[in-house]
């Protein structure tokens, strides 16, 4: 409902998703080739790993010895491939041991909970506190340098971390409604666990396993480097590094092949883990690097002058890099000083995007393609926004709890804004904070100032957010769904507060909401957004009494209270088209009962239908006639 771009969660075919990324494909192919080469080492190598060639000691790579030879003239390629057998086998032993312990325990702990959970988590904590290397050394000392035993011990000792993560994922899955639904069907708990919970943990298991494989390889090579495990002349990767170390100052090359193969293999495991994590996480990958880029219009095409406090002129915003997807298309409107303008629309209409563009805080992956935001007669560039924020334009947001930094007390959050905007110091700040909190009708302001955000209710948090926004005496307040997350009685209180403060301070408000009741309650002017376009703009009474766009009319009609009790509601068929499917013609045509072939042709302009009333429709007369008879 908030930001226009939603990341679609990964679905089936994880392998395909991993192979589709270049990094993932390279890592998988490398590991597959390495494994094959090590398994088939006798077939692939010309020399045995122990064959000494006195004529070619310490050789550099050549046609005969592709990777050179060591101090005894043994072929390095052959030693790496044969040595890889014990390394890879060691990794497999460790990984399997870890999976066998951690996955069942984690699943059971997370899904069953209760006493089992507490006992298993204590065990995990215990395992995580055991210094694994120390125990491995003890195991090696005791079991006569048996590397397999050591690697299995490593797997078991390291299973605490994976156990916790699997439990965490299972715990989340247990709260998922589809798991509840499966339980209600009467599936046994084991069935639910295997069918629905395990799938949810798959991502974290694969990620952790590949990262652990990297660690296990590091430990295996480290142990063999120390001379533990298989004894010379058996080839091991760590052993080869140790052998090379003794002659390194004379023959640095010998260090390169084993170091490279260890590094590449560790990297491949690590990259695989990262790629799987990216593919399974629902986090927006676009949140990556880079800041908002503003391609503001060249200086010559200055904005048209305007008397309004704020004027938006032909604003278009797109998301993404190489082939930007337009989310907001040529949006223009004005807000006069002291006026309350409503911006109404459903998910994907671009209303939150508009609100964020007005304060210069678009998501990092979005950019202004064209258009201006003119404030107080001045077209704003990015640097200008920074100077205006808090002082001239302020914002309150949809989720009051998320809007307050959880690590700071209310008093210091509000105080920070006071210090920044008013330059006050010391006791004056405390006084101003209490004054602001009292202004937003918080009883016992001094007491609330000492609390942390998690200690207050959502309604109270929204009051604090309003106090912060109004500290600098802004002339325009952008309120993005300010009451959506609140209960209806709290919503009424917050709206009353906003109305009072707006009237007292004479400030303009842009109120973004999907709730037509809230719009009717607060606004004097309304803009209706549909699929990134303004489709209607009117004074509030005119819009609700005689909507001039079929979408606005249909939206008003789809309130349940418009239909009689038990009667069907006049619903709008179909769904809002997503940005990639926006047609050239009318974007509402496919859901509109008045649509004609012309509607699907050219782009529809926004036309005047009366004083201060515009609509983006070519069937207005028919609509008005129809509405009149209804």
């Amino acid at each position, binding site marked *: 409902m908030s930001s226009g771009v939603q990341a679609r969660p990964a679905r089936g075919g994880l392998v395909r998703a991993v192979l589709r990324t270049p990094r993932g494909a390279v890592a998988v192919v490398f590991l597959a080739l390495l494994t094959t080469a090590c398994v088939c080492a006798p077939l692939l190598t010309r020399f045995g790993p122990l064959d000494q060639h006195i004529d070619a000691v310490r050789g550099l790579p050549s046609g005969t010895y592709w990777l050179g030879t060591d101090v005894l003239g043994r072929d390095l390629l052959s030693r790496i491939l044969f040595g890889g057998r014990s390394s890879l086998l060691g990794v497999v032993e460790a990984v399997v041991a870890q999976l066998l312990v951690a996955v069942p325990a984690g699943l059971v702990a997370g899904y069953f909970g209760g006493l089992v959970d507490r006992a298993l988590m204590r065990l995990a904590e215990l395992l995580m506190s055991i210094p694994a290397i120390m125990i491995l050394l003890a195991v090696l000392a005791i079991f006569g340098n048996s590397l397999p035993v050591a690697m299995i011990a490593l797997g078991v000792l390291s299973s605490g971390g994976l156990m916790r993560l699997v439990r965490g994922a299972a715990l989340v899955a247990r709260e998922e*409604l589809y798991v509840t639904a499966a339980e209600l069907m009467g599936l046994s708990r084991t069935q639910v666990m295997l069918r629905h919970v395990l799938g949810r943990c798959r991502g974290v298991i694969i990620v952790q396993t590949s990262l652990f494989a990297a660690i296990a390889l590091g430990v295996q090579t480290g142990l063999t480097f120390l001379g533990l495990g298989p004894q010379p002349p058996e080839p091991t990767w760590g052993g080869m590094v140790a052998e090379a170390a003794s002659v390194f100052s004379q023959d640095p090359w010998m260090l390169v092949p084993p170091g490279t193969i260890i590094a590449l293999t560790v990297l491949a495991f690590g990259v695989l883990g990262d790629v799987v994590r990216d593919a399974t996480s629902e986090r927006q990958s676009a949140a990556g690097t880079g800041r908002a880029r503003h391609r503001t219009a060249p200086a010559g095409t200055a904005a048209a002058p305007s008397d309004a406090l704020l004027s938006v002129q032909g604003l278009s915003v797109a998301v993404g890099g190489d082939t930007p997807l337009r989310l907001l298309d040529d949006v223009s409107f004005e807000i006069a000083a002291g006026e309350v303008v409503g911006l109404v629309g459903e998910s994907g209409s671009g209303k939150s995007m508009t609100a964020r563009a007005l304060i210069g805080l678009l998501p990092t992956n979005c950019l202004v393609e064209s258009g201006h935001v003119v404030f107080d007669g001045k077209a704003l560039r990015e640097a200008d926004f920074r100077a205006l924020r808090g002082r001239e334009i302020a914002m309150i947001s949809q989720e009051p709890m998320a809007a307050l930094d959880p690590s700071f007390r209310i008093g210091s959050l509000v105080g920070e804004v006071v210090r920044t905007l008013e330059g006050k110091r010391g006791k004056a700040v405390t006084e101003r904070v209490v004054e602001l909190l009292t202004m937003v009708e918080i009883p016992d302001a001094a007491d609330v100032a000492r609390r942390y955000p998690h200690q207050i209710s959502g309604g109270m948090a929204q009051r604090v957010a309003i106090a912060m926004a109004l500290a600098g005496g802004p002339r325009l307040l952008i309120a993005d769904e300010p009451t959506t997350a609140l209960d209806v009685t709290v919503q009424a209180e917050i709206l009353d507060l906003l109305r009072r403060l707006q009237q007292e301070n004479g400030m303009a408000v842009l109120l973004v909401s999907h709730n037509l009741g809230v719009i009717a309650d607060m606004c004097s002017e309304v803009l209706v957004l549909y699929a990134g376009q303004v489709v209607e703009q009117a004074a509030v009474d005119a819009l609700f009494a005689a909507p001039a766009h079929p979408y606005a009319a249909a939206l008003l009609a789809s309130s349940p209270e418009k239909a009689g009790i038990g009667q069907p509601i006049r619903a709008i068929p179909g769904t809002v088209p997503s940005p990639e499917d926006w047609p050239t013609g009318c974007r509402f045509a496919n859901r509109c009962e008045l649509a004609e072939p012309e509607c699907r042709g050219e782009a529809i302009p926004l036309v005047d239908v009366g004083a201060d009333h515009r609509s983006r429709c070519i069937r207005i007369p028919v609509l008005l006639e129809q509405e009149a008879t209804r």
Partner: protein
Amino acid sequence: MSAEHLLRVEQLQVDYPAPRRRTFRAVDTVDLAVRPGETLGLVGESGSGKSTIAKAILGIAPVSAGTISFDGVALDPKRVRRRKPVTDLQAVFQDPTSSLDPSKTVGYTVAEPLLAQLGRERRKAAPGEVRDRVAAMLDRVGLSGNAAARYPAQFSGGQRQRIAIARALIVDPRLVICDEAVSALDLSIQAQVLNLLGDIRAERGIGYLFISHDLQVVEHLADTVVVLYRGRVMESGPAAAIHRSPEHPYTRALLAASPVPDPVRQRERRAAREVYRHAPARADALGESCPFRHRCPFAVERCAQERPVLRATAAGTVAACHRVGELPDVRAVVA
């Protein structure tokens, strides 16, 4: 226990553990009854206990007292998650993202309850029977034929809610619990889903326990409305009566607070709301008193000393208020 009731909840009480070894009473001695084919609406704000009641009926909340019976048979509420499933009772939840397993196809998701039922009855489905029934069900909720092979992520919120409805209906239940089933949807999509629920009810004669925070939505679909506050029933009665003439101060406050999508009427309602504005005092612990008294402009001393019982009102509802009948005229609010 009357057999004419499909679902009957008596003196239900649910306590959740709270920090410092205390308990939090989420539902406090609530009685409910749903007849076959009837829709009961539960309405209330967050913390009213409306979803907890649904969970208690479904067997996933810690019931500390009271009985729940379905079709004349008492359900064991204490053995959470372990009782025999009741095929005749299904549920649709609020969050259309969380209610579908993202790694399973829509066809599998919808078929799963049917397969579980067949498995329990040790019955083999005729070849293609499951597939045909899934296809018919998806068609009925308005999804195209190829939907079965696709994954939930490929559908919009409204479509996912249709899938969840299909999953609930595939085993031909007699009662469906809809817990905030349309709350996460856009207005135009909410209207579609409400219409779908209404049509299916008319076709199949099923009943709903319809839970929402939105009084208007509840009044639209329900025959009977129950208003909850802090785990207790404040008022209940026929939807038309609650709509026309709410008698409990809380019901009125709730109605007065919800804005009407009409600027003229909203101005009137806002003016009327002034009567119900009341600087809230700190909410006391629930005891033998009225849970709404700290927010009630009409509270008298008695409200703090005696817990009000449900009493019949002139409007045809029952309300738990000591001052029923003494309150000012209600027309300004419901205008």
